[in-house]
């Protein structure tokens, strides 16, 4: 694997996470329990889709085959996507969406903090820009975790169910491949093992405040996305997201 191939893989991994989670959050548009939450979900979606645009544009340039952000977003199939399984999980109820967001935001926040030290000019600029947005996302999901987890019996139960359901998809956020090794050696990307330590500390402290506990999965964690193996959900997300550009490939907007 060349350095360019590693960088391409890394960029679509980040870009696909932002794109797929942005798409998922966009599903809340007009659906949330109150206007403020509806607007918050779609605002976070907007930030993420904006980030995805930058990442996929850069990925296309690194790849050097003339593919644009739209080509990468709308004309790849499931097995070519490298987003984590966590972000493609169903929205479920609001508690499930918030829990998914909270696990991801904590990861993304610490990841971007570390990425600020990247020797890649693009990755560094990207991190400095995005961390400002993700700081707000993390604040929102953290507040809701505590408010709902330590809330009524009903809200507590829903949050605990969500943690139980999603926990096994968190391990994969920190998996490293050959691409990581190559880029780490060049000082371009952080060591995800170090991010994991920060993530666990952060997550455990909030879960404790939220009176929630982590399920015992006996060490089991779901895996697959680094190789393009996804859950059934991704196909449905892409079907909806890619329908129009595939139906009318020459359409311009």
């Amino acid at each position: 694997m060349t350095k360019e191939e590693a960088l391409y893989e890394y960029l679509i991994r980040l870009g696909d996470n932002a794109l797929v989670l942005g798409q998922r959050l966009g599903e809340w548009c007009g659906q949330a329990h109150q206007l403020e939450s509806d607007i918050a979900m779609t605002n976070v979606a907007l930030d993420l889709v904006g980030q995805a645009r930058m990442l996929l544009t850069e990925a296309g340039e690194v790849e050097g085959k003339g593919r644009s952000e739209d080509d990468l977003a709308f004309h790849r199939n499931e097995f070519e996507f490298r987003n984590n399984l966590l972000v493609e999980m169903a929205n479920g109820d609001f508690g499930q969406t918030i829990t998914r967001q909270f696990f991801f935001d904590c990861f993304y926040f610490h990841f971007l903090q570390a990425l600020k030290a990247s020797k890649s000019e693009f990755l560094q600029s990207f991190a400095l820009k995005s961390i400002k947005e993700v700081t707000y996302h993390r604040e929102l999901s953290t507040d809701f975790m505590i408010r709902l987890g330590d809330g009524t019996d009903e809200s507590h139960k829903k949050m605990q169910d969500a943690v139980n359901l999603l926990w096994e998809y968190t391990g994969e956020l920190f998996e490293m491949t050959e691409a990581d090794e190559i880029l780490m050696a060049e000082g371009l990307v952080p060591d995800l093992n170090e991010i994991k330590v920060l993530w666990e500390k952060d997550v455990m402290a909030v879960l404790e405040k939220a009176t929630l506990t982590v399920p015992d999965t006996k060490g089991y964690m779901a895996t697959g996305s680094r190789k393009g193996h996804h859950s059934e959900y991704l196909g449905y997300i892409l079907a909806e997201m890619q329908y129009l550009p595939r139906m009318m490939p020459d359409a311009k907007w």
Partner: protein
Amino acid sequence: MAVKTKTEHVYDLLEEVKDPEIPVLSIRDLGILRNVSVADDGIVSVIITPTYSGCPAMDTIEQDIKKTLTEAGFEIKVTTKISPAWTTDWMTEEGREKLEEYGIAPPAESTADKASLLGKPKVVRCPRCKSEDTSLISQFGSTACKALYRCDDCLETFDYFKCI
């Protein structure tokens, strides 16, 4: 009488390019316009930066810049740069005043302020009755750059331009 340089002329023209979401603010007031330069061959190069990554106004702003300058007879190139990342500190004093008059509370303090660094709650003044007795309703408002506040004196809700 001093003759304006081509660059100054371009800056003057760009005063007319407003943020489509906040039409009282020019892109210069907002700090979105980062640089203007004129090359030897006469091509004007304009550099802009987005407030937020997904700001949907950027495409419109780019088109407005092109339209304004092309109509004035310039040949131009617009480049979007994300580094250094936009910060509310770049908003001009005039921009802050216009924002408050328009009914949006301007960013409360510099992001370099100690209170901001220490995460202390900021004082946001109601743009209508100027009361400082206000509370946060939601960190996310009608656009990516704004939060939603309520004035506890006049009881009106209002937008607050977030510090980033």
